Structure formats: C-alpha cells, structure tokens
C-alpha cells in the first residue's frame, strides 16, 4: 500500500506492506535509527515517537496508521545545531548510560515539559512510568528532566 507520512517536517511517500510497524518504517525505510525496539509488547518505550503530537509506542503502531499524519522522532529535537533543553539535561545530569532507552525517554520528556513546564518529581516519574531503563535506576533521568524544566523557564539554555 502507498502511504504518505510527514516525519520531522519532511514528507515521505512509500509503498509498504500493510503489516509494517511504524518503528521499522522509520528505521528501515527512512534510516532514522534513533528510534529503538526493546520489547515488541509496548512495555519498554524505547520506541516512543510522537504521532500528531502525542507520544506513541511505535513498535505497536502500524506504519499505515501514520498515513497522512505527522511523526516526530528524536532526530528532530536538536534544531539548527542547538540541542533541546531535555537533551542538554540528559548530558548534564548523566541521564543516559547505554543510550538505548534515551530517545524514547527524551520524546516523553519533551512532551511532558510542553504541557507542564514545572513538573514535580512525582509527575516526571509518572510520565516515564510506561518506559523502562535498565541502566540509570531512573534517578538521573528525573534530574535531567527537572534540569531542563528549570533552565527552560529561566531561558538560560545555551547550545
């Protein structure tokens, strides 16, 4: 089947098998390998991308379901060479270790801060509770999101 998907602002038209998952479409068809697959059952969230502005687990979304829609992936976070505050927070606070869950965590964190610019620790933990990290014990991910929130509000973020 033919689908047209706007990914990170760029329109892509592809002929695909109807069963192809969005995660594999992004990775195999568009070479956007920042989106990872960790479980196939919607439990780990390494594959989180935005579909029309809402975080989804792209391992359980068919690419066909993204037809005519907008997808945003981790590759879009940095703009004009400038890192997003959540990316900077992950670097500053050691929010990434092996880096495998990081893209999904970043996409959820960005979504959270867009809706709640000053989330509590509890709110952050709840927001990422559908995602797994085996390296950080979550502590520094929470700190990284807090760091981004604080610096974003103060508009002190630099590249």
């Amino acid at each position: 089947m033919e689908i047209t998907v706007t990914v990170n602002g760029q329109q892509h038209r592809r002929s695909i098998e109807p069963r192809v998952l969005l995660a594999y479409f992004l990775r195999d068809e568009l070479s956007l390998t920042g989106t990872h697959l960790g479980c196939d059952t919607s439990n780990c969230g390494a594959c989180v991308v935005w579909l029309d502005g809402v975080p989804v687990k792209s391992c359980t979304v068919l690419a066909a379901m993204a037809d005519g829609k907008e997808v945003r992936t981790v590759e879009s976070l940095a703009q004009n060479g400038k890192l997003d505050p959540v990316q900077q927070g992950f670097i500053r606070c050691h929010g990434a270790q092996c880096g495998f869950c990081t893209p999904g965590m970043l996409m959820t964190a960005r979504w959270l801060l867009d809706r709640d610019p000053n989330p509590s620790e509890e709110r952050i933990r709840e927001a990422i509770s559908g995602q797994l990290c085996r390296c950080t014990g979550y502590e520094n991910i929470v700190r990284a999101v807090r760091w981004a929130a604080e610096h974003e509000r103060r508009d002190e973020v630099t590249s």
Partner: protein
Amino acid sequence: MSDTLEGTAHGNGSAYGSQPRKEDARFVRGLGTFVDDLALPGMLHGAVLRSPLAHAKVVSVDASAALAHPKVKAVITGETLAQRGMAWMPTPSHDTQAVLATDKVRFQGQEVAFVVAEDRYAARDALELIDVEYEPLPAVVDARQALSPDAPVVRDDRPGQENNHIFDWESGDAQRVAEVFAEADVVVEQDMLYPRVHPAPLETCGIVADMDPVSERLTVWSTAQAPHTHRSLYAQLTGIPEHRIRVIAKDIGGGFGNKVGVYPGYVCAIVASMITGCPVKWIEDRSENLMSTAFARDYHMRGEIAARADGTILGLRVRVLADHGAFNATAQPSRFPAGFFGVFTGSYDLQAAHCAVTGVYTNKAPGGVAYSCSFRITEAVYLVERMVDLLAGELDMDPAELRMRNLLRPEQFPYDTATGWRYDSGDYPRALAKALELAKYDDLRAEQAARRERGELMGIGLSFFTEAVGAGPRKYMDMFGFGMADGAELRIHPSGTAVVRLSCMSQGQGHETTFAQLVAQELGIGVDAVDVVQGDTDHTPFGVGTYGSRSIAVSGAAVVTVARQVRERARLIAAAMLEVSPDDLEWGDGRWFVRGDEELGYTLAEIARVAHSSFEPPEGVDAHLNAVTVYNPPNLTFPFGAYLCVVDVDPDTGQVKVRRFVAVDDCGVRINPMIVDGQIHRGLADGIGMALMEQIAFDADGNHLGGSFMDYLLPTALECPSWELGQTVTPSPHHPVGAKGIGEAATVGSPAAVVNAVMDALRPYGVRHADMPLTPAAVWRAIQGRPLRSDVAIT
C-alpha cells in the same frame, strides 16, 4: 564537549572528577550505532526456529516448504551444521552446547533451525513453514528432582553421563565448622531460593556477519561484551584463521553479563553468511532473549549460622544446589564452577566456614552467571546477609548492632578469609556507621515502633556486602582458556593528543570518558585530547572483556601503566632536550622540569613534537611516545558497602513500597564520581527488581512463563525511590590508582536489604523468611494464617 554548559572540568589540575560523558553527544541525538542500526548492501535477515517443548527427540526437520518461499535464501538445520562439524560449540565451563539441535531439544526455546531471507518479515514467515517432528520426553524442571534415580537424563549426548549431575565443589573446612558449631550457643538454619532471573538489557542480543568470499575475511558486528574471546571462538568453530576475523562491537545497549557468551544465533548468522555470500543480520526479539540467553542465579541454598549468645558469629555452613539448565554454559573463570560464591563469609570475622555446591542439569535454558552478579557474589551476599538477619531475630538483637559487632575491623586488612580469599582493604564499621547516620537509623526504629502501634507494617532492612572483582590473576583464572589479564595500548600523536586502545568494551559504563580521564591525569593533557578505542579486535589489544566489574580494576590499571610508561619515555627525551640527567627531572603540572628550576622544562605536547622530529633520541630510547602492556592483576579488588532500605507493606494486599534506600559504597578511588553514582543507581534498581518483581518461572512441563516484559516485570520509575548515596574511600593497595570497580556492587548488595526490610515489616506476624520475588501475592501468602505475635506490638 560543545554540548555541555561548562565543558571539561579540571579542578586543581586533576582530570578526575564528575564531568559529562563524551558518548552522550551521539546518544541524545539518536545517533548511537547499535547493531540493529547497521544496514549493509545486500544484507539478508535471519530468524531462529525454536523448540516449543522442553525435552523431546527431534525425529525430523523438513525445511522444503520454507526453502520454496520466494524471499528465502537458505535454511540452516542441525544437519547443515553437523556436516561442517559445527552443530555443537564449546562453553566457557568445559561443556558443549548445541548450536542447532540434532538429536534432542533440551529446553523450551532451544534453537532448531535458522532461516535466511530478504527481509526480517519474510524470515519470520518462513519459520512457520518448517515442519519439525518431535517425540516428547518427560522433562526435569525442578533442580531438586534432577538427581533422583528416575529423573530423565538431559545430557545423554555426553559420553558416560548417566544422570544430571554436573559437579560437586566445596570450599572451607567442614571439620572446623563442625567444631565451632558444637561450641555455639545458637544455630540458625534456613532454606532459601535465589530465583532464576534475567539481565534483560534493553537492547537484545544481535549480530551482523559478513563473510567476504574473496578475501576470506569474516567481519562480525555484534553485541559482544568480550569481542576478543568471541573472535577466538569463531575461529575455532569455523576454521577461519583468527587474523582474518574481525569482531566489532559499536554501541551496546546494556549487557550486565547477558552479552558475554556466544549464542547459537551468532554462529548461525556466520554460517549463513558463509553459505550465501551476503551479510546476514540476526536480532533476537525480547521473547527469545528472555527464553534462551544467559539467565542468572537459580541457587537453592541452605544456610546455617552459629553464634555465641552475645552475638559473636562463629561460623557459617552452606549447602547449594545449583540449576545450570540444559548446558553448562556459565560464563565464569573456568576453574570456579560456583563462581566466586566462596566469598560467602561476607564481611565478617568468622572462625570457620564451609560450603558445598552441587551443579545439575535441567530442561531449562543455559547460563547462570549474568546480571551483574560478580560471578555468583550476589547469591553469596544474599545468603550471608539473610542469615545474619535471621540470627538477629533469633537473638532478639538489633541487626545493625549484630553486624557492627561482627564486621571486620580496619586493622585486620589485608584479611584472609576462612575460605581462602585475601581482602585487600576496607574500613567496614565506618561505612556502616555512615549509612546508619544518613538514614537516621534510631529515628527510623522509633517511627517503626509508633507505626506498629497503629497497625502499620514498616520495615527497615540492612545489608553489608564485600565484593570481589577485577579478575584474575591469570595464573588462577581464565575464560575459555584465556588468562584473565587485559591489554592496553597508548599512542601520543606529534601534537600531543592521544589515542588509547582498550581490550574491554563498554555497554553503557562510559569508558570513552573515564579511560580518557585516566590517561589525562597521568600525562597532564586534556580529557578531550584523549580518544578511547574499544570493541574492535583489529584495533585493540587482546583481553577478556568487560564483565565482573573488571574494566577499571584491570583495563584501568593497564591504561594507567601504559600512560606511566609513556611519561617515563618522555622524561628521557626531555632530559636529552634539556641536556640534563633524567634523574634531575621532576614531573608536575603536566611537565617534566629541572628540579629546582621550574622554568626549565617541557609539557608532554612539547616533548611529543620533538619526539617525532629529526631530534636524535638518546641511545637506546625509542623515538615517538607509545606503549603497550598487559596488566595481570596480582589479586582481586574488594569493594564494599552498607545499604539500608525502608519499606511500607500494605497488610491487606501485600504490596511493598520502597520508601527509602540509603547506599554507602566504597569502591576505592573514584575517577568520575558522576558515572560511579550512575552505576550504583542502576544496581539499586536491580535490587528492587529482583527482591520484589523479577523471576523466570516455568510450569511442571518446562514451559517458560515469562517470555515478555508483560510477565517478566522490571522496575519502573514508580517502583524506585530517589536513591540516597553516601561514600567512603578506601583505596585498593595494589591497583595503580587505588580504584576497585563499581559496576555490580549495588546489584550484589541491594536485594538482601530489600528482603530484610520486608521481613522486618512482617515481623509482627512471625514471618521468618519468604523467597524472592516478594510480589504482593507472595507477601500476602506469607501473612495469611499467621497469628500476630504478642511480643511485637501491632493491633
């Protein structure tokens, strides 16, 4: 480090200290290169057909329908491999493992056939077209039944193997233990199971194999914690000479021991590439990862602890039944069948100790040593720390006081344990005191008493652990026959920047940063001026890899050694430049200068430029600044720590909430404290997972009951509290910078603290022990039917 706000920190001229990691620039952009990210021209995709049965004869495998699939390029069966002499492969524990089943399948999920197709979907489709006829056999699932005379024999392929016995191993002095037990006022005994769990790194295992038929060179990209040993095994299996095999590990998405071994899928992908002449990718899915790759633990333990009435611990006796699954593929030093379980005497001054371990085969997946266990020290620490708590309960003593009374004292180091280990250094009472102080222990006990009056179940759990990491020395320890020593190579470029090459391989531990800091510190150059190369057998010196918390302890020592060798050569060249004796030079602030005249001297960069020029080096001194070494550790290093966990238990549902976790770790000198803390956070989350959630379970027929993250539960951000860390620093006396290693300490130390806390919470019900995982159902069951104790207040 353009991504960072402050750049590289060099406080007080030291390259050590918390600083952002070099690797994060790519990870936050989604630009890491994990194995599944590779796409080579003409690449084919593999998929593994797995046994649905735990134990069955393989009568026939018919792949003809799969081969007729238009996108299928090849199907590999056990017979294909047997023709090449590759149906079986050696394990690190002197056993063999089937690559693809030829005679029998021995666990559910065992590899039976391998399909190669044009895309990953077609490969999966074709699996369903393979017709395998099985003749089911009774399975042995419970290790406690494995040695009964009527148990089915799992390994009838092994000549002379007539039962499921693998090994008996013992350590310590049984007679001496009997003597001290006879003198004891109190003996406490407990059976406990350390359940089978799985490391479950977020990235599963995978490979891209590319056999070039013209050059006869094999290139393998894979999730390999030990690239060099993988290369050697591939050479042995395929007959391709070692120098024509290159194993590359780019970014690895977590390992925790899961990625030490060589799995059948890797071998199949290599064979598939040899057969098809195309690169072949195989990436396991999560179910395959949980069902077939290295599990951890599965130790049935009986502990007995003997003490005087005043709480002086005299001795410890342990009996272990170890379930090794269908193939003895435990990835550990080959002369240590129970790993380093021999350190079960823990952190205490015991007069006598003895353990006996029996290993058995069952119809379950192979493995056993994985999941950040420091070669079975998780099991050892859990055993001794549970026994100490049980003893405290029996003596009605405070568990902190009982530990403090029995901990090794600083003046006893180096300390020779009753089972023959020499602990290098430590100040245990200081670490425990610090943890109690951070937690405000007395206040917690007062709060607990008040809550018990109100009928609330609050528990406080302690554990004190001693780790043994940084294996070898090579004289005693080997993996796959390779002595456990690690190489390092350092080259200074003419401009004074450097490249250091490691034999170990990060899976997220931040080697690119920490090892650059080690070199920078020794040579007085910037951390950014040091490039770290790892995970490529063509470009790194030989070594046995990263596991068992070895990286800083062994490879770190190797790196410091080559840096110091380079510094010494720079001294000889600087002396020639200054026309003075090398003895007149002093090193400071990154320069060799003339003692008494600091103006007269050169930085390493200045010396490097001259060393590469037409300047004639002194007689017998090589020009250029480079060095290579192999570091053979004289002993293990022994990190330690004191942990305290506070839980609240809902008496109606059995739900455990971890409210606080205080961790005081001593891993010797810390190179990058930020990274060290991150390593500890990870292990503490492991402790919550293992104590409360994780178990690889089977039914009586050997069906795996946890083949996805819907069943195999891992802790999320909601189960984990905000960790409270403290530290003490006791340098290792034999490591060149006093570091000890931190990768697994918290995984080793934390489960006992959580379980002790839950048992402490259930004390009003008289619950002595319940096995992990302490799920709500398990806790609820432990409470049910137990009358409240009259001596512990709860209403």
